[in-house]
């Protein structure tokens, strides 16, 4: 169980976390928010890299796995040696290290590169190595900061199935701004903006925020829109241009369409 209570953390005049409260039980949590919303600061506070000026973080476990946004490794070491380095840092008993390393390397599909130097790996492979070190040692809390950045579609799918495989009795927090990354795997989503917890709920809870707020209408009506609205997309069909608009007001000229999780996220973020 991980509880953040009224956490505030500032950098000069910017409040990266602003009275942020959240509770994480076992399961996979998606931390969604735009760039600069405080996701990374929150993760750094959880793993002890930063301490909040106000508020508290209650955590009943010490074993944390972490994948930072920027992950690199010593280029002269092989994949196996790098994993051994992290296994030693994580104080995994020497007798278990080999099995643990091979298991995690296999999970991220790097077994055939185990003897390769890190310097010879592609960016996506280094990212996978980062994922492997984060899950090594069976940590109770795993924090992934933008884990899928740089992964190809096949590896993204593999990452999602990896999460399903390891999720038992764990709290996994994935920070991202890519909504599609979290919708199929997360038990709950936390939307963070300007350092605040905007909303927390299941995928269907988030989707329901956008219900009856998504409209498809002719582009020429765009100038007539009033109130709080957001143009989500522009599409062309049969030589006509349309826009998809999120609006809290009913738009008579438009057709109401089904909301997806992205619409719910945008509505929560834009206060629509």
């Amino acid at each position, binding site marked *: 169980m991980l509880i953040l209570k009224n956490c505030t953390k500032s950098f000069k005049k910017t409040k990266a976390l602003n009275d942020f409260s959240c509770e994480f039980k076992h399961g996979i949590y998606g931390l969604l928010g735009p760039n600069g919303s405080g996701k990374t600061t929150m993760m750094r506070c959880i793993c002890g890299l930063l301490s909040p000026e106000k508020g508290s973080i209650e955590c009943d476990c010490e074993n944390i796995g972490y994948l930072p946004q920027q*992950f690199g*490794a010593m280029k002269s070491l092989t994949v196996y040696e790098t994993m051994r*380095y992290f296994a030693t840092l994580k104080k995994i008993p*020497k007798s278990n290290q080999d099995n643990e390393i091979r298991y995690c390397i296999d999970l991220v599909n790097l077994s055939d590169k185990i003897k390769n130097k890190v310097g010879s790996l592609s960016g996506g492979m280094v990212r996978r190595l980062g994922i492997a070190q984060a899950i090594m040692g069976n940590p109770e809390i795993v924090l992934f900061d933008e884990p899928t950045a740089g992964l190809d579609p096949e590896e993204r799918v593999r990452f999602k199935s990896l999460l399903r495989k390891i999720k038992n009795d764990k709290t996994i927090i994935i920070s991202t701004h890519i909504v599609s990354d979290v919708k199929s795997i997360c038990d709950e989503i936390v939307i963070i903006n300007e350092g605040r917890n905007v909303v927390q709920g299941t995928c269907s809870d988030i989707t329901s925020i956008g219900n009856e707020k998504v409209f498809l209408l002719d582009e020429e009506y765009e100038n007539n829109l009033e109130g709080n609205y957001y143009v989500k997309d522009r599409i062309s069909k049969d030589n006509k241009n349309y826009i998809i608009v999120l609006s809290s007001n009913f738009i008579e000229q438009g057709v109401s369409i089904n909301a997806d999780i992205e619409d719910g996220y945008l509505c929560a973020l834009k206060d629509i």
Partner: protein
Amino acid sequence: MCLKRYINRLSLIQLTLKGMGILYIVPVVFLFLVLPFLTYLDFAKGYSPEQCYFSTYIMLQIFCPFFAVWWTLFGFREYVEGRIRELLLVYKKSLIVELFLVFVFYFLHICVLLGLYCIILKFNYFNYIFIFFVQTFAFFSISFSISIILKNIAIPFIISVCYEIFCMTANIDFLKFINMLSSDIPSSTMDIICPYIFILISSIFVFVLSNSCFKRL
């Protein structure tokens, strides 16, 4: 349990030094190839054994302390300025033991070198081991602290090079108080202990203090 912890630490150090790649061997090459070669050149020039003894004493002071900087900065580079720094700080809150073990490992190289010189030149350089120890530790600790404060390894390295050049060239009396290298062979134990004990205490203080700064992101 304690032994296991130290074995863990030694394996971490082994991987850290391995992670340096080819850079690892530079101090070893200087200590065991370049320095003996310079001594050989002195012999070849026709220096007397006493002159060789003195010249080697000066060269040992020039090379041995300086290369303590090498493994400290390049070995622990990732902890200071690398992309992996953030992650390493999560798993490792202090580097004090690992760094000290690296220092001890480096100083063992110096001891071996002094032993070889004792056998070859028949002069006992171990009489001045305290001086070499303090000078080496000072370079090691100051370079580490500057790198931690500036989160950069290039500047402490350049500072070390500049200070080394200064020490080699500054023989003016009023500059000697900041010159760590001794241009004379000390004649008594007090000559060895007095000026260097202060440097040693300050270096230990700086080392411990910079380790506490290390924990900050």
